[in-house]
C-alpha cells in the first residue's frame, strides 16, 4: 500500500465518527470602523510610513525628493516610468539584487493590521517586493477594508498564482527581543494613500 493510501486509511479509521459543523463567520468583523485613521495609526505602529497623495504626479515628486536619483528603481505602474524602470518583468529575478526601491500598487489595504494585498499580476515578478532595499506601495483610500474578514470577502474566488499581504517593513526581534527593521526584505515601507 502506498503511504498516501495507508495514511488516509488510518485517518479514516481514527477521525471522529460524525462531522462537526463549520461555524458561521457572518458575526465577525465590525459594522462601523474609521478605516483611514485606523490604517495610519497601525501602519506607524508597525514601522511603516505613509504619505497622502492626490495623484501619481505627487508620488513622482515625493520619490524624486526622498530617494537618491542614481539608485535603481523599478515599478509596475506605467505612470511612474519617469522615475522607475518598467521593462524588467521578464528578467532573471537575480538581476533585481541591486534594486533600491520597488514601487507597486496594492489591490486594497486592511485597516486593523495595515496589511496590503498584492498578487503576481501587480508584482511584475514575485521577488520584486522582497529583494528591494526599500518598498513603496500605492493604495487608494477608498480601497481600505476594516478587517481580514472583509479582506477575504473581497478576494473571494480571485485567481492568482501568488499573493501576499504585506504589513510594514521586514523585521526581526530574534536577538534579545530587540526590534530591528530590515531583516531580509525591505528595510522600509512607504504607503502612498491616494485620493
Amino acid at each position: 500500500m502506498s503511504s498516501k493510501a495507508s495514511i488516509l486509511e488510518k485517518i479514516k479509521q481514527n477521525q471522529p465518527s460524525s462531522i462537526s459543523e463549520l461555524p458561521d463567520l457572518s458575526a465577525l468583523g465590525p459594522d462601523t470602523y474609521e478605516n483611514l485613521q485606523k490604517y495610519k495609526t497601525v501602519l506607524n505602529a508597525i514601522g511603516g510610513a505613509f504619505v497622502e497623495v492626490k495623484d501619481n504626479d505627487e508620488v513622482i515628486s515625493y520619490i524624486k525628493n526622498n530617494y537618491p536619483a542614481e539608485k535603481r528603481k523599478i515599478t509596475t505602474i506605467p505612470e511612474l516610468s519617469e522615475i522607475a524602470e518598467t521593462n524588467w518583468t521578464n528578467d532573471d529575478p537575480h538581476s533585481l539584487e541591486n534594486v533600491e526601491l520597488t514601487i507597486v500598487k496594492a489591490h486594497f489595504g486592511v485597516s486593523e493590521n495595515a496589511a496590503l494585498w498584492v498578487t503576481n499580476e501587480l508584482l511584475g515578478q514575485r521577488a520584486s517586493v522582497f529583494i528591494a532595499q526599500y518598498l513603496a506601495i500605492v493604495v487608494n483610500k477608498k480601497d481600505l477594508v476594516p478587517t481580514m474578514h472583509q479582506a477575504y470577502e473581497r478576494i473571494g474566488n480571485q485567481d492568482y498564482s501568488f499573493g501576499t499581504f504585506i504589513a510594514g517593513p521586514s523585521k526581526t526581534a530574534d536577538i534579545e527581543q530587540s526590534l530591528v527593521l530590515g531583516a531580509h526584505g525591505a528595510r522600509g515601507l512607504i504607503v502612498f494613500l491616494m485620493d
Partner: protein
Amino acid sequence: MSGKIIEHSKAAEIFNRDIKREEWHDETLWMVREKRDNAAFQIPEWELLRETASQIKNNVLSNIHQYLQDFEEQAKKNGVVVHWAADGHEHNKIIHSILENHCVKQIVKSKSMLTEECHLNEYLTDKGIDVIDSDLGERIVQLRNETPSHIVLPAIHLKKEDVSETFHEHLGTEKGNKDPKYLTEAARLHLRNVFLSRKIALTGVNFAIAETGEFVVCTNEGNADMGVHLADVHIACMGFEKIIPQRKHLGVFLRLLARSATGQPITTYSSHFKKPADGKEMHIVIVDNGRSKQLGREDFRNSLKCIRCGACMNTCPVYRRSGGHSYHNAVAGPIGSILAPNLDMSKNADLPFASTLCGSCTNVCPVKIDIHEQLYKWRQILVKEGYTPTTKTIAMKGMASVLANPVIFDFAGKTARFIMQKAPGLVNNNFNPWYKQREMPAPPEESFREWYKKNSRESKDKNNEQ
C-alpha cells in the same frame, strides 16, 4: 542535539543555576505574553474569534480524510507535485530525492518545526547536503550547533553577547560588538548571498486550503519569500493537520496567529502560494509521523488543532523558568508536552509532569485546546502503563496504602509531626525532593481528625447545655 536525553526536571535544574539568566528568560517571555494580551484586548470579539477558530478546527479534524483529498486534487490542478510521507524518515527521503533529481547539493530553509521534528537537517547533512536555515533565530542556533528552544523565537535562550560571539566566530563580525542592529545587518548580508545562490528552497506551511489547493506561509523577516522566489524549486512541508476548509477561514486564523504569538496585528508577510511561477517547480510533502495515531486518541486528538503560535509557552511558569531545551522535543512547552508522548511514551514520559496544571496555557490558546487537562490525562496513562520513574511509583503506592487504612494513616501522621517538630533535619534535607527550593510547612500541633474529635465533642456539649 543528539545523545542521551536529560529528564526535564534535571535539565531545568541546570538551567536554574544561572539565576540572573533564568530571571531574564522568565521576564522576557512574560513581556511577550503581555504583548499578546494588549493585542487581544484591542479586539472586542476576541473570544468569539477563538471560539470560531476552535470550531473550524473541530470540523477539520472530523472531516480531514476528505479535506486532504480535496487539497491534493486542487494542488495538482495548480501544477504542484504532492508527496505523502508516513513518517519522518520518509519525509527526509523525499526531500533528498528531489535534491538528487536536480543534482543540487545545497538547500536554504525557512522555519519549519516539522523538519525539526523529522531531524531533516541531520539527515541531509549526513548525505553531504549543505543546509542553511534562514530565519535569523534559527541561523543563530544552527551556527551554535543547537536546536531552537522556542517554536516562534528560536534563540530566546540566548543573550546578545552569545550571538555576538557566534557571529564573530562564523561570520567575522567585530569582536565584542553586540548591537542587535549591527548583528542583524551582518546576517542580512550573509544570507542574501545564500538566497541568491540556492536553487532549491524549503519552507514550512502555516495553513493549507482544501478548497483551492493553495498554502500560506507567514514570516516577519521575509526569509521564506526571499528563498523561494530566487530558487528554481520550492518544497513546502506540512503536517496533515495544517489543512483548513476554505480561503475565507484564513480571515479568522490570520487575525489570531500573530496577535497570540508576539502581539503583532499580523506578520509582515502572509504569502499565499497557489501555482509555481513559470518554468519553476513546487512540491508539497504531507506528513503523518504519528498524527493519525493522535487523531485516534479521543482525549488527545484536539492537540492537532494547534497553529504553533507559542502563546502557551510564553505564559507557562514552568517553561519560562526551565527553558525550551529542557523539553528535549522539537516543540517545547505545554503543547509540546502533550504532543511528545504520542511520538514516544517512554522517551517523553517526564514532559506531562513539567507543569503546575495552572491552566494558563488553556486560557491563552487561540484554538481553545484544553492543554492542561490533557497534561493531567497523560500523567494517568503514563503511570498506568508504567512509564514513570520507580521512585515515584513506589511513593504513590505507599501513599495509597497509608491513605486507605485509618490506623496506619493516624500513626503516620503522628510520626511525621513528631519528626518535624523534634528533628526537622531528617526531612529538611536534600534527600527529600520536595524540600528543593521550598521550606517544609510548620507542623501543626494536632491533626485535623484530633481537632475535629475534640471540637465536635465540645460543640455537642454546648448544644446539650442549651
